């Protein structure tokens, strides 16, 4: 089951440049929340702060309170153990090219010291089914490299890899921006089904995508969270002028 996320007074920096200013947001469990905004508005940084990937960039730092379920992300929990419970899918599909499809999905389990062969088989199958990739790869998954798949399949493989460790939250950082419309459709369909089991936060450039998959949408601008509300409200009657300008295409 997914868990909710509570963010209070989150600030983030790249060196001396502040990328996020005092973000407060409460993300509902087992729903999909979209984060939209123009390029450079801090939406990716925000998502990367949730699993502490932000701080892996040299000179980047973050401060504030982030609670994911019972975990206090910036206080008393190690970054490694947080990332084990939060899956992440990146903009560019990044399967491990030297591993087979099967090993790609099992890689998270292996890293966590999971050695049970039979259970691993089950989990890999289940994860590939979650990611709607099972039918396409079940015969070749031991032989074929993860890099031998098409772009859309690679991205679904990355989703399967993230889901294999049974995370509570799935973060998606523009997961469809490198994909064609058909693959995008498949991934969106997937998000719909995955909501039942995971809390999903998706960063997207594509406002139609946000309106299709997300119940809640947050609009970021210049490192600030301008508005956060139900998706219909954001796209029909936003309460902030800047949100309206953005979604009607007046800038960005």
């Amino acid at each position: 089951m997914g868990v909710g996320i509570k963010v209070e007074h989150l600030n983030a920096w790249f060196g001396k440049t502040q990328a996020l200013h005092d973000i407060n947001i409460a993300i509902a469990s087992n729903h999909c929340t979209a984060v939209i905004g123009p390029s450079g508005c801090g939406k990716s940084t925000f998502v990367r702060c949730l699993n502490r990937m932000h701080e892996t960039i040299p000179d980047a730092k973050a401060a504030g309170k982030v609670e994911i379920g019972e975990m206090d992300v910036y206080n008393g929990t190690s970054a490694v153990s947080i990332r084990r419970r939060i899956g992440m899918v990146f903009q560019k599909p990044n399967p491990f090219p030297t591993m087979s499809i099967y090993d790609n999905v099992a890689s998270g389990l292996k890293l966590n010291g999971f050695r049970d062969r039979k259970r691993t088989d089950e989990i890999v199958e289940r994860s590939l089914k979650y990611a709607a990739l099972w039918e396409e790869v079940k015969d070749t998954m031991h032989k074929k490299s993860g890099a031998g798949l098409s772009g859309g399949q690679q991205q679904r493989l990355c989703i399967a890899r993230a889901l294999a460790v049974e995370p509570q939250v799935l973060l998606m950082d523009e997961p469809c921006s490198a994909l064609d419309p058909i693959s995008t459709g498949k991934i969106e369909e997937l998000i719909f089904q995955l909501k039942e089991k995971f809390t999903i936060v998706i960063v997207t450039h594509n406002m139609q995508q946000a309106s299709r998959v997300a119940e809640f949408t947050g609009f970021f601008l210049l490192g600030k969270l301008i508005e956060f509300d139900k998706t219909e409200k954001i796209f029909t009657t936003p309460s902030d002028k800047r949100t309206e300008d953005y979604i009607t295409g007046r800038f960005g």
Partner: protein
Amino acid sequence: MANHALGAPHVSGPQPTEKTLVVVETSAQSAPLVQVGGNEWPDRVFSWTMLLCGLSVLAIVALIIVELVTKSNLSWHAFGWRFFVQSDWDPVNDQYGALPFVYGTIVSSVLALVLAVPLAIGVAVFITEMCPRWLKGPLAFTTELLAAIPSVIYGLWAIFVLVPLLREYVQPWLAKYWGWTGLFEGPPYGIGMLAAGIILAIMVVPIVSSMTREVMTAVPQQQREAVLALGATRWEMIRVGVLRNARAGILGGIILGLGRALGETMAVTMVIGNRPEIAKSLFAPGYTMASVIANEFSEATGDVYLSALVEVGLALFLVTIIVNILAQFLVWSVTRGTPARANG
């Protein structure tokens, strides 16, 4: 085309615009700015010159091979394949077997790799993944510098620093605790196979480490992030996300290092002891193919003696060529656009 662009305004627009355009077009037709065809001989000279440059490399290699084969003919006829499996090297009785040299070359090189590869990979991992930024440049530069030191300097350093150290401290300790393996027996001279292996290792480290560093840097950042996001520690990230993706390139670097170790002459000659014997102990003196040629060429009086030395050279040449071809294949398989790069 120009008329098209002007299509809309030109209905109401002024006539002169169209006229000027027409004039420009006709003038362009009557006197082209750039001549087509014409003088081609500079290009021909250029291509012939470049062809000559390219062929000269092939010619040099061919000449070396011809020279080695013809000059070693005498020895080849006298000993045949026995030359490579016999171990007595006796210039007085004109009996030559190159096995101790082949053995010495291979053992000293393999020993060098065993010592150098972990160190070199460690250096590369530290520089690319963990080093504070201010230290990165100086450290990388110093590693490269190691490759630029002439080998005779390494030899001198080995004689005055490394050999006494081995004799006084390292070898007694090895003999005491690891003597039972049989690899560390006999009197600790300092000079010998172990010293040669260590000095070769120091010379090989910069080659392996700079190659490793390059392929590690080429691994896309997304691969590192993918592993980190799965909840990997830094070491796991380096192992799964970086080293695993770079392994073919690292292998290429190791083989280039092996090529260097096989052919190295000066530093090895100065410390290996130069005795054509095959001994199990690494403390014992040995001899390599390159060293025997350098040491004995000037005093080789008989024709068969000279021919035997050339045959040793031929053997060394072949081994080095094989190693280099292997390295080229490996490096090529990395740069050809492995999935790792396609992803980047």
